[in-house]
C-alpha cells in the first residue's frame, strides 16, 4: 500500500510531462472527423492505424525516410572513422599543440549553426553539393565530430596501455595496434558513440532544412518541420509521421540509457 502511494505521484508526473507527446499519439490514431471535433476526446471507438498508411500517399514520407537513413548511416560511419583516428591521437600521444587543438574542438561544440550556414551554403553551391546527400553527410559529419572525438577519447583512455605495448612488441605498427587491439576492446564504447552520432544526424533539422531543397534529398524532420505550417488540415497524418519518426530514437534510448546518461555527463562536465 505504501509503495502504491509513493508510486502514484511519480506516475502522474510522468503523464504530465509526456502530455504533449501523448496528445500527438492520440491524434495519430484518429480519423479526421475525430481530429476536428469539439470537445476533443483522448480515446474514441473509431481509432485505427489508418493515418499511418495514409501519410505515405499524402506526403512523400517513404522517400524522406530513405533519405534520413542514407544520411544518418553514412554520417555515422564517416564520423566514427575520422573520429577514432583523432581520438587515438589524443588518447595515446603527447605532442605540441595537443591542448590547443582539444580546446578548438571543445569550442566548436558551442558552434552556432546560424553563424556558419551562409558560407556553407555558398560553398556547397559552388562545389555542386547543394541539395545532395553527400553535401548534407559532410556537414553532419563535421557537426558531430567534436562530440564523437570527445566520447571516443574517454573510451580509448580507459584501455590500459600494456595491452597495446604487447602488440607493439609483437611487431605491430601503431595503426595496426589501433585496428587489432584498441578498436575491438573499445567496441561497446564505439557502439554507444555510433548511436549518439546516428541520433544526432537523424534528428538534425537546421542544416538539413537550408542545405536541401527537393524531395529527393530532404530528410524526415525537414518534411515535418516544413509542412507543419502548410498542411494543417491533416493533423492526424502529421502526428503519425511525428510518432513514427520518434520510434528509432526512443528504442535506441531505451536500449542504451545508461551509456546515454554517462555520455551526457561526460560531454558537459569533463
Amino acid at each position: 500500500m505504501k509503495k502504491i502511494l509513493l508510486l502514484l505521484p511519480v506516475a502522474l508526473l510522468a503523464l504530465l510531462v509526456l502530455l504533449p507527446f501523448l496528445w500527438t499519439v492520440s491524434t495519430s490514431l484518429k480519423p479526421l472527423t475525430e481530429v476536428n471535433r469539439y470537445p476533443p476526446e483522448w480515446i474514441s471507438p473509431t481509432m485505427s492505424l489508418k493515418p499511418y498508411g495514409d501519410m505515405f500517399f499524402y506526403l512523400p514520407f517513404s522517400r524522406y525516410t530513405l533519405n534520413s537513413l542514407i544520411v544518418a548511416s553514412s554520417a555515422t560511419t564517416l564520423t566514427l572513422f575520422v573520429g577514432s583516428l583523432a581520438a587515438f591521437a589524443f588518447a595515446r600521444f603527447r605532442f605540441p599543440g595537443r591542448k590547443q587543438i582539444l580546446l578548438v574542438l571543445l569550442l566548436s561544440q558551442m558552434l552556432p549553426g546560424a553563424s556558419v550556414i551562409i558560407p556553407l551554403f555558398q560553398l556547397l553551391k559552388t562545389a555542386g553539393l547543394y541539395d545532395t546527400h553527400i553535401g548534407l553527410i559532410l556537414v553532419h559529419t563535421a557537426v558531430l565530430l567534436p562530440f564523437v572525438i570527445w566520447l571516443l577519447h574517454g573510451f580509448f583512455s580507459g584501455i590500459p596501455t600494456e595491452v597495446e605495448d604487447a602488440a607493439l612488441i609483437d611487431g605491430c605498427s601503431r595503426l595496426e595496434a589501433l585496428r587489432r587491439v584498441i578498436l575491438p576492446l573499445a567496441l561497446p564504447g564505439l557502439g554507444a558513440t555510433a548511436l549518439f552520432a546516428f541520433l544526432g544526424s537523424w534528428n538534425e533539422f537546421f542544416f538539413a532544412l537550408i542545405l536541401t531543397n527537393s524531395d529527393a534529398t530532404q530528410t524526415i524532420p525537414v518534411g515535418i518541420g516544413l509542412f507543419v505550417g502548410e498542411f494543417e488540415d491533416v493533423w492526424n497524418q502529421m502526428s503519425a509521421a511525428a510518432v513514427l519518426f520518434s520510434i528509432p530514437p526512443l528504442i535506441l534510448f531505451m536500449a542504451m540509457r545508461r551509456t546515454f546518461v554517462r555520455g551526457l555527463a561526460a560531454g558537459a562536465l569533463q
Partner: protein
Amino acid sequence: MRRYTPYMLLTPALLFTVFILVYPMAQNLVNSFRDVSLVREGRGWTGLLNYEHVFGDAVFWLAFRNTVVYAVAGTLLALLIGLGLALVLDVHTGKMSSVAAGLYSIPWVISPVVAGFAWKWLLNDHFGILNYWLSSAGIARHGTSWLGNPHTALFCVMVARAWQFYPFAMVMFLAGLQSIPAEQYEAASVDGASPLRKFFHITIPNLRPVSSVLLLLGVIWSFNDFNMVFVMTRGGPINASMVLPVLVREFSFVHFDLGKGSALSVLIFALLVTLSFLYLRVLARRERA
C-alpha cells in the same frame, strides 16, 4: 616519422574543422563587409553598410531582446523543472526510479521538430486539448490562439523549449544530489535541523557548481536554438517571437541579402564566444575546486 604520427591521425578531423568552422568564419567576415545577394550580382565592398543595416533594423533589436528572454528565462524554467523532478527521483530508489527517469527523459530524446510539432498541436486554438481544459475551467476563452497572439507566442515557445531541455538538467541534478555525502545530512539530523533547513543549507549549496554549468550551457544552447521557434511560429506573429538564428535565415534566404545575414552571423558569433569563455572559466574553477 613517429613524431608526425599524431598529426597525421588528426588531419582528417582538422580538415572537417576547417570546413565547418574556420572557413565559414573567415568567409562570413568577408561577406559581412560586402554586398552579396542571392538573386542579383553583388556590388563588392561596402564597408560597414551591412552592420548599419542590421543595427538600423527594428526587428534585430526585437529579436535580440526575445533571444535573451528565450534563452535566460527558458533555461531557468528548465532548471526549476529539472531540479524538482531530480528531487522526486532521488527519494525513490531501485528499478522504479530508473524507469521513471527514463520516462521523464523522453522530451530530450525526441527530435526538436517533433517536440515543436507536439506543442503546436497541443496549443491549437480550436482542437487542442489545452484550450479545451482551460476553457472548461473558465480560465481562457475557447478558441484562444496562444501562438497567434503577439503577447503569448514567445512565452509558449519558451515553455516548449524548457520542456525539451529539462531532462538534461534533471540528469545532472540527480547525479549532483547522489554525490552529496550522507554524513552531511546525518550531522544535520543530529543537530535537529528541519528538512527545509537541510534543503537550503546542504542540498542547495552542494548543487551550486552543477547549476552554474547548467545555466551557462542552457543559455548557450538556447541562444543558438533555431528549431523550436521556426517549427512553432516561424518567428511570428509579426516578429513577436523572432529570435536571432531565425532572423539569419530570414535575412539570407527570405530577403536574399547574404551580406546582411552574414553581418548578423558575425554578431551572434561574437556574443557566443563571450558566453563560451565564461563557460570555460566556470569549468576551470570547478576543476580547481
